[in-house]
């Protein structure tokens, strides 16, 4: 497997809208194709290594979830990105594909409020259970008193 071959194969996956770069290969996918593309990356592209999952808050454009998957032997890295749309928080979970997604998705829920459908354990992971809001959202105010901790 080479990055070029991986790019070619990714173009065949349904739901992949654009592909850029080679290190990493950045593939933008529809939220509906999120899990299937990750499974394709694992099974066909050999990306067995689950590197990380996170999100970016693009303000008016809404949240974008990002996952990085690596094929350590062939040195192929794939970065999957999916936009949840303005105000959208629903995203399919990658836990059925990668066990490493468990804690990462919990963190992503904790920090951004992304609801991962099919996640086995949707609890906050870094903040207290009764924390209000999701701190990494751009709308989260940092300079005002925030109950009950400040």
């Amino acid at each position, binding site marked *: 497997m080479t990055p070029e071959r991986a790019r070619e194969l990714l173009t065949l996956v349904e739901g992949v809208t654009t592909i850029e770069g080679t290190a990493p290969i950045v593939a933008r996918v529809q939220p509906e194709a999120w899990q299937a593309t990750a499974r394709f990356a694992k099974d066909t592209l050999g990306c067995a290594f689950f590197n*990380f999952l996170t999100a970016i*808050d693009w303000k008016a454009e809404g949240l974008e979830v990002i996952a990085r998957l690596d094929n350590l032997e062939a040195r192929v890295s794939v970065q999957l990105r999916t936009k949840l749309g303005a105000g959208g928080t629903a995203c399919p979970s990658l836990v059925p594909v990668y066990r490493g997604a468990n*804690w990462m998705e919990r963190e992503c829920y904790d920090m951004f409020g992304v609801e991962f459908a099919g996640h086995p354990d949707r609890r*906050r*992971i870094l903040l207290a259970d009764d924390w209000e809001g999701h701190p990494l959202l751009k709308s989260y105010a940092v300079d005002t008193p925030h109950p009950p901790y400040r």
Partner: protein
Amino acid sequence: MPDVRALDYTGSERLTMNMGPQHPSAHGVFRAILTLEGETVVGVDAVIGYLHRCHEKLAETLAYVQYPTIASKTDYVAAMSSELAYVMAAEQIGQFEVPKRAQYLRVIVGELQRIASHCLWLGTWCMDMGGALGGGATIFLYCIRERELVLDLFESLVGARLLYGFHQVGGVRYDLPDGWVQQCRRTVDLIEQRLDEYEGMLADNPFFTMRTRGVGVISAALAQDVGVSGPLLRGSGIAYDLRRAQPYSSYGDFAFDVPVRPAGDCEARYLVRMVEFRQSIRIIRQALDGLPPGPISSRPGVKSLAQVKVPKGEAYARVEGPRGEVGCYLVSDGSNKPYRMKWRGASFSNLAVLPHILPGTSVADVVAIMGSVDPVFGEVDR
């Protein structure tokens, strides 16, 4: 939490035990809610987040010039690696050059940091397994003694022993003081001899072998699935080291071996780290021999907050820290602060493997396994 009902239940009373966050062997603020059947662990619920300082949010409010010193505070046992990951990400987006001398200095401090970090790991881990190793405190004190020598080197270089602020976008902040190179050579020579002593104490110790061999096995498939990196990944038989796979800071100039052990148990992780000690010393010697002259920063004197602006774009820079892949994912909107920063802490992913390997082990093994993972909590919950 794994479904305890799925395990074979023999009918005895089940006990829930809190291990941590204050347990002396819990390696920082980690709370494991263990479900026990006798001495056997049948369920684990890991609770983290006691230290959480919202590093990522903080990074979005601080300029590129300000954050590297804060980056130290994620993995405070190996501050040099996290600082490097952050400045490398900013350098990648801005395409800032780093002079050769600065690259070598980054390698030297990075490898010294690996030695210092592994010293702390070995000492505390042996202390965890305590009684079986004739108290365990002996080797702890030995390791701390050696770690202090490395910290002396850092102190004479940057004036600090734990949190450095050594790296900056475009290079490093300080050049070597007089006599530092000789002091560094003496230190690594001494540590190399002491490593033989440690191995003499541990490798031939039947208690040590019993506590570590075959304990806490992480298979190669599980390691990749969870995203475990560093000595844990290499202890599970996967030859992957970022210094070799994706050489940064002139690592391509140096000869070194990447140790791999197939067993995936605590002993394999121990053996990998012991080889890494020696390989770090080997790299340091080569870097000191070939230290090029010249400037230490392509952007000297950059101090004001507005001076470092990074063009629009994003980058993911990663460093092989003592615990594994320390990554920094930066998104820039063209201002002097990152729009978004994500820490990929090695400890976070490494620790996430525990719920998969602890069920079926005994309580005493939990301590040994947790120590062999070597988590630093500043990096787990950031």
